[in-house]
């Protein structure tokens, strides 16, 4: 009775630059989509956090309150709150509308590299160079973290959350996955300092970018290596890796100003986008569309697939 599903279109990659946001906040340390991908946050080295509509290229709001450069940010599922972290060792919880800091979590002993909300925005998980991952409660007023995950032996460079897992990548070369449901900690050794980790959309794999210029796709359950992606340059800096919206491609920023995309299954280089001359500081892939945000040298670029037609054509 039911109509057959329309044949899924081939996964596309962002190939054309649609927008360029001149952020005007120093170096853009991180650029992040919000939960539905309609807005984005840029973390500036001038201590500000900015909210944008990247599709229209409009700056919506600037959030000031960090004491030093902002290193990462995330938006809650309902777009009502933001969290950010910075080199001032604090994690801040913001109210989107008023632009005020709701809470500031102090407790990290060093720069806070990464921050994430859980699904219901009740917990903020932050990772710092003090080698801890701290889970902060957004509901209560307690100043200390709910739990400190101090298993890492070196700085935590990246943290990601699923609905019952905390994934952290550390400079000690381990990808640690804390499974709350099973009460287990799985620690996978990758061998090189991890710069970025992420879950695949299907929740079966983890992707880890490390300083040996390699991306590794690991099976979540067994820790086996499913794929290795090379070709970019990542030896010094903390650069982001992404998975495309349908898990078809793996992307990573590079120090040579390119963004590289590989086919997830074949491992072949699918695309290299020239973003700028400098290091591509941060990457973020749209949750549902073939749409990429790349930050380099104080600007953020929005890339879309070839077939995309800009409506307003307000881009530069």
């Amino acid at each position, binding site marked *: 009775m039911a109509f057959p599903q329309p044949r899924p279109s081939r996964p596309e990659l962002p190939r054309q630059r649609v927008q360029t946001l001149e952020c005007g906040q*120093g170096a853009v340390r991180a650029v992040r989509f919000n939960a539905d991908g309609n807005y984005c946050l840029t973390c500036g080295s001038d201590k500000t956090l900015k909210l944008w509509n990247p599709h229209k290229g409009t700056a919506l709001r600037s959030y000031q309150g960090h*004491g030093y450069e902002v290193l990462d940010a995330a938006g809650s599922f309902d777009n009502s709150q933001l969290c950010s972290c910075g080199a001032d060792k604090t994690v801040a919880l913001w109210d989107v509308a008023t632009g005020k800091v709701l809470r500031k979590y102090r407790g990290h002993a060093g720069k806070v590299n990464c921050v994430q909300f859980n699904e219901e925005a009740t917990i903020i998980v932050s990772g710092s*160079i*003090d080698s801890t991952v701290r889970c902060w409660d957004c509901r209560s007023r307690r100043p200390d973290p709910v*739990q400190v995950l101090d298993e890492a*032996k070196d*700085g935590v460079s990246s943290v990601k959350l699923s609905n019952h897992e905390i994934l952290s990548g550390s400079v000690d070369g381990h990808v640690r996955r*804390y499974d709350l449901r099973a*009460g287990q900690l799985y620690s996978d050794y990758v061998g090189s300092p991890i710069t970025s980790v992420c879950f695949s959309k299907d929740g079966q794999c983890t992707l880890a970018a490390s300083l040996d210029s390699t991306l590794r796709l690991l099976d979540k359950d067994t820790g086996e290596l499913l794929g290795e992606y090379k070709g970019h340059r990542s030896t010094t800096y*903390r650069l982001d890796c992404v998975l495309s919206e349908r898990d078809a491609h793996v992307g990573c920023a590079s120090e040579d100003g390119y963004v590289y995309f590989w086919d997830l299954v074949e491992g072949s280089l699918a695309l290299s986008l020239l973003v700028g001359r400098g290091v591509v500081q941060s990457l973020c892939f749209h949750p549902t569309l073939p749409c990429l945000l790349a930050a380099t040298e104080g600007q953020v670029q929005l890339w879309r697939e070839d077939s995309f037609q800009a409506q307003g054509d307000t881009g530069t």
Partner: protein
Amino acid sequence: MAAAESSESDEDDLVSYGTALQPLPEGERLKKPVPLQEQTVKDAKGRYQRFHGAFTGGFSAGYFNTVGTKEGWAPSTFVSSRQKRADRTVLGPEDFMDEEDLSEFGIAPKSITTTDDFASKAKDRIKEKARQIAGVVAAIPGTTAFDDLIGPSKITIGVELLRKMGWKEGQGIGPRVKRKPRRQKPDPAVKIYGCALPPGLSEGSEDEEDEYQPENVTFAPKDIMPVDLTPKENIHGLGYKGLDPSQALFGASGREHLNLFTGDSEDTSNLIGDLRPSKGRKLGITGQAFGVGALEEEDDDIYATDTLSKYDTVLKDEEPGDGFYGWTAPKQYKAKKWSEGEVKYTGRILDGFSLASKSSTPSKIYPPPPLPRNYRPVHYFRPVIADGNENCHLQKVLEESTGKLDSDMRQQSRHALNASQRREQLGETGLKGPAPSVLEYLSEKDRERLKKVKQASEQKMKAKIIPQEPQNSRCHSASLDGASHKWLKFLGPQLANAGSSDFKPFAKNPEKQKRYEFFLKSLKQGEEADTLEQYLDPNTTEWEQEREQEEFFRAATFYKSSNSALSSRFTRAKYEDDIDKVEVPRDQENDIDDKETAVKMKMFGKLTRDKFEWHPEKLLCRRFNVPDPYPESSIVGLPKVKRDKYSVFNFLTVPEPTTSVTQATNEKVQQSNSLNKPKKPSRWDVSDKEKEKKDSISEFISLARSKADAQQQQPPVPATEEGRTGLSESLPAEAANEDKNQEEESKPSMDLFKAIFANSSDEKSSSSEEESEEEEQPATSVVDSETTKQVDPPGSSSSNVQENVVAATDPSVPLLPTSKQELDATEEFGPKLPPAFSSGCTWQQEPEVPASFPGPSKREKKRKNRQKHKTKREHKHKKEKVFNLNKLFIDSLTCQSNCFYYLCCYPGLPRPNMKMMF
């Protein structure tokens, strides 16, 4: 008014039209118009006419068309409880309804009545049936069937629906069936009215007719009552039916007597609920018209329809195999048709099945296995005794009881050997692992001392064991006097423990205590009771001696018994609550070297994966909407155990004492840090674990520790300071090694940092002027910086120390850079942040750039210069200027002074790692 007055005066002249109003009676006031709230409509019964009634949309119109009154709405049941109690009335919907709605055709009729539309022909049924039966019984059967054709015009909807579906009057309901036509309807050829056919003819013709019928013809099912298998619900005897009214009324005369226990044939025929037509009797009242008798129980068949097809119009034998007969078939019929084998089967055989001709073979039953000849059906439980000092006696006793010899036991306990013992037996050489015994790290002198302690304790243990043997013999010696014999027996083999401790029952009386100790000693050495007495006080009387002896025995017993009683309830603490013990994760990670090789071979998976039990905080689980995986555990994080921290770290020093007071305090902090929470496991914990396994060694170590603690001279470790900061770099060092090498020239010199740290730390403590800071001794300030840095991240500081040790002692670990400059340049942990801007690209708005800041290349050169000419003052001054600026900036950021800052936003900076420490 004036006009009115004038009109009154000349009234006669006016012409008046119409009828005049009635003159108002005197004294009566003018009628007031009806107020709005009283302009209500009422019906004939005086009730308010509902504009919208309760059950047709609302309530009766009351005050202003509301339910209430002018005073408001008051419940009708409210009665002031002062005068009388309100009786509780249960109100139904009828209480709010009008009477007319309760009538037969109102909204809610009180009695159930069937309207004509839905009225069935039930009233006529009985009459109809009577007619039918009469027709059947009559001389020409079937004549009354025509009456069916002249039916009432109204038929029930069910019948109509059935007709639409192809049902015809007189047919059964259900799927069409294949059957022999004869059975369905009698052949017209053989239709003979009134008289029965000769039996032979009817049987024979039936078979012949079959052949003419095509196979694919189906017929409507018979309209018959299914056999209802009603369970027996009454308390009558089996087969007892009670008085059948039909028989009682009509059949009684024809029969011999009233038989209450009629046979099956009677039963089946009664299912039709009719008189037997074969009687052929004409009666005035027949059929179901008579209804159900008072004595009959079942009257559920009120909707049954009787049609002609139910009845045999031809007199013949009962149809064999018809569904009409099941197990309720007549007796003679069953007996005739079924063979002997089938008699057992009481159910109806399904179509397409037949009874098996031979029964299936019975399943073979195997006898239980025969019992062994020496089997006794009683089991004695032998407790399993763990090896241990406490249990050795019990074990011995048990072994004796079981008849096992001790030597036997020794031979079997090959599993009790540890690895090194096995190795000795096999003659293998010892492992040269990276984690050798602790003893190797001890100095020669310490080792000697340990050995002595070990020997002493071994001798002591031997001494404890030896007296047990003579005890047994002594127990049987008759020379003992009664009391001591008794006591000795009671004390038994555990006496050995009694004196070994510091239990002093007679501490108040040192003389007596001494005697007691002598007594115990001699007792242990297995001396006779007579000789025991010589230790007693010779100045006392014999009676007193006796008493004292008994006292001693008692004391010994007391000590021993309490000891054993408690020990049975408690287990020995595995880890002492000691400051020397540290908590380390229970599960150790695999060796990093193994993992590294696995990574190199790309053998990810089991080799690179560590799995730990991890306990999330309960609140965290709640926030994640996940059930707590360990609901009853109170642990959070990784399960920790306490381990002996008696390792090399105790012998290694933390930094040498220096002149600076602040440094000393810092050192203390650091020491306590390393003592209290060295959370980060290192390889040393692994080796520690191995040590734990070897009980004896750890025992000696703990013995020796108390002594060693006193003279814990911390040997100076070279390159401690240097190695400390490099720990976190150990991994990124590989990747960023080349960077480091490149950077080496451009590293800022130490005095730069000295200047900075002298500034910041002093300002923090005393907030003195910057000029005075310059006078700070460079050496102390460097140490300051070092220590503050260490203290800063508490989690990593202790691991720093541990890593230091690794670096200092383990040659396998790559040597860390020893030059201070290099280390200071790499205080950034982990991968760096990308540079803000690529070289050549300049950014206009740079808030942090001080105006007087020199270009980077210039600065680096200066740094180099400074390295060479440390004493050059003017450079220092310049630098300080710069960094004072920076410091001010950072102070404005309200940040702690002892953290790392990463100033990468200077324009045109080629490298990102221009990081400073404040």
